[in-house]
C-alpha cells in the first residue's frame, strides 16, 4: 500500500510540471545581520558538542556568551506559480568571537558560513512566508591561548564542515523593488577541533533581519 502511494505521489508530482502555469522569476539580493546562539542545538539536525565542555573542565567556566553577531548577504531566485513559489538561495554569513574562561584562557573563533538550499514561498500579497532547507560548507578557524598547569600553550586549528545542514522559516515583506526579511535559521555545523579531539558547534539557532532588493 505504501509503495502504491509513493508511486502515485511521484507520478502526480511529475505531472504537475505541465499543470502549473509559470508566471515569473524573481531575483533578490539581501543584506543580513542578526544573532546566532551557538550553544543551541538545531532541532533534529544538531549533534552533541564536547569542545567547550572539555575546556571548561581544565580552564574553568566559560565567562563569555555564546551568542554571536552574524552578518552576511544572500542571493535568492525563485519562480512563481500563482500563489506559491519555489526558489534557490545562496548565502554567505560570517562572525568572529572570543570565548573567555575563568582562568583567563581565550579561544578566538572566526567562522564563515557558505550555505545554499531550496525555499518554498507562499505569496500572500503584502507578505511572503517561506520555509527552506539546504547544505553548504562552513569554515572555522580556532585559535587557542590556554594556560595549563601554569604554562601557556597556543594552537591554531582550521576546520571545514563539509556536510552542514540547515533549515529555516521566515517571511519577506515586499515594498516595490525593496523588501524586509525576517528569518529564523537552524544550522548544524559541527567541527572537530583536533587539539581536544572534540566537536564544536559553529552553527546554532539564528535570528536574522535583512533588507533586500528585488529585480
Amino acid at each position: 500500500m505504501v509503495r502504491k502511494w509513493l508511486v502515485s505521489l511521484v507520478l502526480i508530482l511529475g505531472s504537475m510540471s505541465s499543470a502549473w502555469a509559470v508566471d515569473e522569476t524573481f531575483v533578490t539580493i539581501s543584506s543580513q545581520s542578526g544573532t546566532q546562539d551557538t550553544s543551541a542545538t538545531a532541532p533534529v539536525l544538531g549533534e552533541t558538542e564536547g569542545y567547550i565542555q572539555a575546556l571548561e573542565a581544565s580552564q574553568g567556566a566559560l565567562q563569555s556568551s555564546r551568542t554571536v553577531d552574524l552578518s552576511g548577504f544572500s542571493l535568492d531566485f525563485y519562480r512563481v506559480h500563482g500563489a506559491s513559489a519555489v526558489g534557490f538561495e545562496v548565502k554567505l554569513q560570517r562572525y568572529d568571537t572570543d570565548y573567555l574562561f575563568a582562568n583567563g584562557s581565550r579561544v578566538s573563533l572566526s567562522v564563515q558560513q557558505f550555505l545554499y538550499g531550496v525555499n518554498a514561498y507562499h505569496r500572500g500579497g503584502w507578505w511572503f512566508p517561506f520555509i527552506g532547507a539546504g547544505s553548504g560548507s562552513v569554515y572555522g578557524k580556532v585559535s587557542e591561548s590556554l594556560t595549563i598547569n601554569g604554562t601557556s600553550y597556543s594552537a591554531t586549528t582550521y576546520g571545514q564542515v563539509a556536510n552542514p545542514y540547515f533549515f529555516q522559516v521566515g517571511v519577506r515583506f515586499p515594498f516595490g523593488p525593496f523588501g524586509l526579511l525576517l528569518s529564523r535559521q537552524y544550522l548544524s555545523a559541527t567541527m572537530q577541533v583536533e587539539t581536544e579531539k572534540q566537536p564544536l558547534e559553529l552553527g546554532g539557532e539564528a535570528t536574522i533581519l535583512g533588507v533586500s532588493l528585488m529585480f
Partner: protein
Amino acid sequence: MQQVLEGNQLRCKVMRLKRFLQTLFAFGGGLCWAVSAGAETRNAGLGPLEIRPQFPLTQAYLALSPETAATLPEGTVRYSYSLAVANTFVNTQGGDGQITQETVDQGLTTADFQDDQGNDVPGFGLYLDVESQRHTLQWRRGIGPASELGLEVPFVSFSGGSMDSTIESVHDLIGISNEKNEGAYRAFSDRNQYAHYIIRDGAFIQSNEEPLNLVRAEPSVHWKWMLTEGGDVLPAISLKLAYKVGETDRSGNLGLVRSGGNDWAHQWLFAKRFDGWLVYFGDGLVRLGETQGLASFLSHRFMAMEYRFNDGYSFLFQQASQSSIFSQTDATLRLADGSSTGGEEQRNANLSVPSSVIMVGQKVVWGRLHWDLAIVQDYSNFGNEVDFVVYSKVGLQW
C-alpha cells in the same frame, strides 16, 4: 444468487480494469519519462564546469567533478579534450624559514622536516612546488533514452611552470604577504621551480625533483543514469558510477600519477531550472583501491549556478568541497609558547581537514562545438588544495 455472481464478476472486472489502468499508467509514465529524457529536458542547461580536483597528490586517483544530471541523447557522441593547468605551493616548514630555496638547492632530506631538537615530527610535512598540466581525452555516448557511457584517458605533466610570478604579483596587489602563511611562504623560494616532497612521521612517502612530461595516468570509465528529468517542482536526478583501472607499472615517476589501485565512485546529481537560472548539486564518494599511506576515500560535494544568456552561452559560478587526501595523523597541535619542539603543520596547514574551491567560467556552444573556459581559486587556504587553476575544454558532438 445470479445477482450475487454477476456482482462478483463485475467487481472482478473492475479490479482487473484498475490493475490494467495502473499498469498502463505506470508504464506510460515511465515511457514518457524515458522518451522525454533523451530530448531537450526542462531541467538541463549547458551544465556545470567539469573540473576535477587538481591537487598534485590527487592526480593519481579517481575523482569526481561537478556535472549536469542530464545525459547525452541516445546515439549522440561527444569527443572532448580538456586542459587544466594548476599551480600549487605548500611549505609546511615555512613558518620559521626551516626550508628555503637554499635548503631546496642542497636537496631536501628528512632532517629538514625535523623539529629544532632533531626529533621526527608526527604527521605530514610538505614541500610542494608544482605546476601540473592534466590533459584529458574523453569519449561520451548516449546509450539509451536516459543513460550515458564515458571513457577518460588522462596525461599528466609536473613541472615548475610559469604562473608563480603572476600569482605572487596578484598576492601583492590584494595585500597578501608572500612571506606569510596566507601567501604560502612563496617568497622563500625561487619562482617556477619544481619540487615534490611529502613526508609522514619522519619518512618520505614521495620525494622527487625530476619533472614529468605527458605521462599517461590511469584510465577511467563512467556510466550515468538519469532517473528523472524532473519538472517544475522536482529536480532532475541522476546517479553516476565511475571506475578507474589500476595499472601495475608504477616505476620511476609513474607512481606520482598512477596509484596502482582500482578506484570506484558513485555520485548523485541534481539539476533544477528557474527560467534563465539553473542550479546543480552533487554529492559523491570515491573509494581508493591503493591508498599509498593517504586517505582511503574522498568525498565530494558541489553546488553550481548557471545563468543562460542565450541557448549557446552561459556563465557559471560553482563551489566544490572535498575531504582531504591526507589521512588523520597524531600530529602535535598544541605547543607550549616558546617551545622549539613539535611540528609546524598546525601553524601552517591542517592538512587532513576538508577544503573548498570556487570556480568561475563560461560555456559556449557553436553548432557542434562546445567550449568551456574557467578559473579555480581555493579560498580555505589550506595546504591540501591548489592555489589556482586555469581550465579549458573543447568538445565536438554529433
